[in-house]
């Protein structure tokens, strides 16, 4: 029973990681940019939600009405002011500029909010700690189920948007060949700015669930970035459903690791990440060797 419980917990935790990784994977898939400020942006969103809840007394879910458009605008500005300019100078420059941005954001948040940890859980009643029975004496947390459901809706919504809307089609085409897409009449600058805005909308949602399930301070963004990065890489960077699969694999590994040893939570997560990387290298090399062998005799 404890095995099944761990699997369910791991899968639900994977939903949270998928939500955190979604924007990172989306941005990499479309713009080929690794946004190292991703975690810090999620913390910024969490602080914005906390401010609205604390100062104005609004429910954090309601506060999304303000924070989601604000994050979209921030994404647009980020693309136009930082990412677009730095991407012109090569692949490494956006990594450095987003790394710098993360440091600026973390220290600005520290300057304004101080080192105190905060949480959004007190503003949503019993949601963060209530659970319900799913049969056989197994219980799942309400927040974990909600997080997983929102992650599925978010990824499914993005998939539908990319598949069936003209703008989604333009985003996919821009991701595939940003030069040629202009020759069929698509403004790739606009499309990339929209993609960045969408990525930051997902970051806003991730910030909400981060703040609901744990406490946060200005410097926890880097840890969120690592989890998001691992989920995205395990599932195949740029693939939306792959990100969910990666999140679930990471979540299950961490949950089982935590059952074995208190430190096992992080170790198992990083371990499975490395294992996937090594396996991927091995199999790509294995098939390459088999191909060369068949061709060269």
């Amino acid at each position, binding site marked *: 029973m404890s095995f099944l419980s761990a699997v369910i917990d791991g899968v639900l935790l994977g939903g949270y990681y998928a939500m955190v990784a979604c924007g990172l994977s989306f941005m990499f898939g479309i713009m080929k940019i690794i946004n190292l400020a991703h975690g810090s942006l999620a913390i910024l969103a969490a602080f914005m939600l906390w401010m609205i809840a604390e100062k104005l007394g609004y429910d954090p879910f309601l506060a999304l009405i303000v924070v989601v458009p604000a994050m979209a605008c921030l994404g647009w500005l980020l693309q136009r002011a930082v990412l677009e300019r730095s991407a012109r100078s090569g692949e490494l420059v956006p990594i450095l500029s987003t790394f710098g941005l993360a440091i600026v954001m973390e220290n600005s948040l520290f300057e304004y909010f101080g080192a105190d940890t905060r949480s959004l859980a007190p503003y949503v009643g019993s949601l963060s700690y209530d659970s319900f029975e799913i049969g056989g004496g197994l219980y799942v947390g309400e927040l974990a189920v909600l997080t997983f459901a929102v992650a599925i809706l978010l990824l499914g919504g993005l998939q539908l948007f990319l598949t069936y809307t003209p703008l989604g*089609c333009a985003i996919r085409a821009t991701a*595939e*060949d940003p030069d*040629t897409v*202009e*020759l*069929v*009449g698509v*403004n790739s600058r606009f499309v990339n700015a929209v993609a960045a805005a969408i990525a930051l909308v997902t970051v806003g949602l991730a910030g909400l669930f981060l703040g609901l399930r744990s406490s946060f301070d200005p410097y926890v963004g880097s840890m969120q970035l690592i989890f998001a990065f691992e989920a995205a890489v395990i599932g195949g960077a740029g693939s939306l459903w792959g990100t969910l699969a990666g999140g679930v694999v990471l979540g299950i590994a961490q949950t089982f690791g935590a059952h074995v040893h208190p430190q096992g939570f992080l170790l198992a997560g990083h371990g499975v990440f490395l294992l996937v990387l090594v396996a991927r290298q091995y199999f790509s090399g294995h098939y390459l060797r088999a191909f060369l062998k068949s061709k060269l005799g």
Partner: protein
Amino acid sequence: MSLLSINVLDIRHGLLQAVREVTFAVDQGETVALIGANGAGKTTLLRAIAGAHRASRGQIHLDGLDVTSMPPYQRVARGIALVPEGRRLFAAMTVEENLQLARASGRQGDWNVDRVMDTFPMLKARRKARCGTLSGGEQQATAIGRALMTNPRVLLLDEVSLGLSPLAVDLVYKSVESLIASGATILLVEQDLKRALKVANRVICMLEGRIVIEGDAKTLTREQITDAYFGHYQKRSQTEKAP
């Protein structure tokens, strides 16, 4: 007034000057073949007209409007569409998605997916297929169809026969001829001289970035064109001018 006019255009690739002082015009409904050996600057010129290369000097006018500094997508909206060398389709997207993308971004007009399918019957059965799985001929047909879906006023075709089987070239050119018959304005870059001369009203031959000969496709002799193509015409002219 010409539909497309190029005035003293220079284009550079770094230190290399790929196109030098090129001036010509294309009238409404005309098909102009741009010919020349590899490295003559034909593709660069075509890409500059589409906006993919920046001109270092000169102007490009479309129906009197200076489009020289416009980005490619704005030129598409005004009626310039390029079928690039190598097709450059979005391989992960279906034929229909490639076509619809162009329709959503281009000018308003009569072209739609069904009309493209009628013009290129080989695509009918491959409508939902991903472009990465198409044959060379089907890819070329899709690339031309994609350009047509933007409802262009001037269609720029870059090496549409390159890498295709003779049968596929025949099929593609049959469709190009039907486009010409319908009154389309086409600027065509082609290595296959015979095909270019068959479909074009006018021929422009380039050598080392310059226009060396320009004239009516029916009146220029094969010798004149061949000489210009290989540089003999220019040298002969220079020799004749020498005292």
